[in-house]
């Protein structure tokens, strides 16, 4: 009675670590625009991410969780979502947020300790960042339930880390998704670490995808650094959800090339060899090789893209840094549509105090 015998989880991969095709590529890859678009998005996201880390290091922003090395997952997922679909992200989704059209400055504002980072119009109905691990899985199930009740053919896409799969919220949502045939895509960014806890002591299951099996959901593993494999898995899952056939669990295998956050020092608990090896599998280099080898990309384009990225990021950082403090009244004004009398009183006290300090 070995568990492994009961359970087979497919693993999808198209490109090897160097960006060479391992098998016949899907037809859509003939349209190079998509791949180039992925590449551009990942390069810009990585530059934005590096800037966010730099802002923290220079005391201009708070704790920040870098998405270094995991850009492919978030980028591909959010490229494939439609506008009326709803993204329920977690805190390591900078690339996807940017792909959804959310200004980098919003994300910086959030990590810079300002609620207005989740308030902008560009967010649409997407969910703000979620810090309490795995709680967003329930929200996704609720969003998908709303779609179903209203007969809307939209999809809820929810992301989370490998650690999040241990929390009951995740499995409760999986179970509902299976029971109610909900239009959800669960995407697990398995970056091998939950802060200092490695994948193997997070769960004894040979794959995290098989958590989906517990709910009777189709469940697959995919190379999370391979945009082609991701595109295949995610688009098929989105289509399935959109056509009323229910949810899919996708475990995307990648690696957290950075520290957990800027407050963390991964060298305390992981071997540098492991990190070095993982650099050899990272998604941007891989796709760059692929594009170079096929003559779809060159050094000039690369330089041009880098300039674009710098320009975009500089202007967003400027917007971030120039955002004045919120009003003190903001702390009170958004708790209830109708402010209770007692809170009104406290607000007046806070304003008086703030004025007192200002003088």
């Amino acid at each position, binding site marked *: 009675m070995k568990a492994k015998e009961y359970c087979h989880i497919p693993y999808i991969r198209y490109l090897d670590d160097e960006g060479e095709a391992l098998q016949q590529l899907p037809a859509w890859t003939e349209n190079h625009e998509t791949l180039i678009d992925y590449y551009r998005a990942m390069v810009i996201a990585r530059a934005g991410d590096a800037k966010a880390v730099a802002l923290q290091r220079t005391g201009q922003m708070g704790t920040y969780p870098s998405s270094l090395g995991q850009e492919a997952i978030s980028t591909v997922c959010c490229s494939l979502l439609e506008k009326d679909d*709803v993204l*329920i992200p977690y805190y390591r989704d900078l690339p996807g947020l940017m792909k959804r059209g959310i200004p980098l400055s919003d994300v910086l504002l959030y990590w810079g300790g300002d*609620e*207005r980072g*989740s*308030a*902008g119009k560009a*967010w649409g*109905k997407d*969910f*703000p960042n979620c*810090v*309490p691990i795995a*709680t967003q*899985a*329930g*929200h*996704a*199930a*609720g*969003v*998908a*339930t*709303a*779609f*179903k*009740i209203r007969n809307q053919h939209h999809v*809820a896409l929810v992301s989370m880390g490998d650690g999040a799969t241990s929390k*009951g*919220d995740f499995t*409760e*949502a999986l*179970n*509902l998704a299976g*029971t109610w045939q909900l239009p959800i895509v669960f995407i697990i960014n398995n970056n091998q670490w939950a802060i200092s806890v490695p994948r193997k002591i997070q769960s004894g299951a040979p794959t995290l995808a098989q958590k989906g099996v517990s709910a009777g959901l189709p469940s697959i593993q995919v190379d999370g650094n391979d945009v082609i494999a991701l595109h295949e898995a995610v688009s098929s899952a989105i289509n399935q959800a959109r056509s009323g056939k229910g949810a899919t669990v996708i475990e995307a295998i990648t690696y957290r090339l950075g520290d957990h956050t800027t407050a963390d020092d991964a060298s305390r608990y992981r071997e540098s060899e492991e990190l070095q090896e993982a650099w050899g599998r990272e998604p941007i280099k891989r796709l760059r090789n692929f594009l170079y080898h096929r003559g779809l990309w060159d050094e000039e384009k690369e330089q041009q893209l880098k300039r674009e990225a710098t320009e975009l990021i500089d202007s967003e950082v400027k917007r971030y840094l120039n955002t004045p403090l919120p009003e003190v009244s*903001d702390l009170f004004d*958004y*708790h*209830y*549509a*109708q402010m*209770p*009398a*007692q*809170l009104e009183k406290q607000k007046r006290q806070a304003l008086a105090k703030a004025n007192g300090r200002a003088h």
Partner: protein
Amino acid sequence: MNSSVSETVDQSIPQEVTEKLSMVEAVNLALDHAMADDQDVVLLGEDIGVNGGVFRATQGLRDKYGLKRVMDTPLAETLITGISIGMAAQGLKPVAEIQFMGFIFPALEQLICHAARMRNRTRGRLSCPMVLRAPFGGGIHAPEHHSESTETLLAHIPGLRVVIPSSPIRAYGLLRAAINDPDPVIFLEPKRIYRAVKQAVSYGTAILPLDKCFTLKQGSDVTLISWGASIKETMEAANTLQEYGASVEVIDVATIKPLDMETILTSVRKTGRCVIIHEACKSFGVGAEISAALAEEALADLKAPVERVTGYDITMPYYRMEDHFLPKPEDIIKAALKTLSFH
């Protein structure tokens, strides 16, 4: 916002009344009318569908509104709350039932971290117009975990409203208001009085404000303050005290959060004496906030220390001994007489 809302029992008897309803039937009617009025209102919870809820609060609604609007969920309170938040963020108005308040704790992370914060976190971009209903309180000889009163835990959370009716008319009026409200409301139903009295309730019954106490009885010597099922013992005590010659004011707090201290202060400034009654454990209970606020804001008017008549700081006893835990009319009378004789 400045005047107290007095008891509506006598005021709001609607014209089209055909029958009198118990409190749980009034809850059912409020849900029915809210669903009829607004397509976005949906119900969810354990056993609320064909079974109509273990107390029958949702009886008949699945047949009337269909499976998509009356959803039996898997057994998972974290999930029930999480999906309510997800639906609410999309503009639905979910009304979730937690089967007993003793099982609300798995919902707290979602309530505290998300429901209560969605509006503030997104500066109004998303909101959480949900209601979480739960029967609560002791006195029906129920099994373990079915008799607790832990409203304080919810009252302390900024961004939530906590509402507790104590009559069929208030159950109807407050629940309809809770469902209409654009923010999350915890609606706690004192199950001991689910079927205690019947009142005429109909579509015309008034929708009530969510931030106003109800003055059930006016008086000038002492103010009795309570909510939920304890209103019953409180009214009994008030009547006895009245026979003894004391003029008693009774306030049903009903909206625990936000707390309408204005009505309470006005009353106690007048009477100078106050007894607070609740089933929950005494220490760090809702009574503490009321008592503290009274002494802080009306110290000069207090003719006697405020008295609290409450459950002890112990786990709700199993039912053989629960009577020793619950406040009794004689306890209230004794405390009131103590304040009346204080000098």
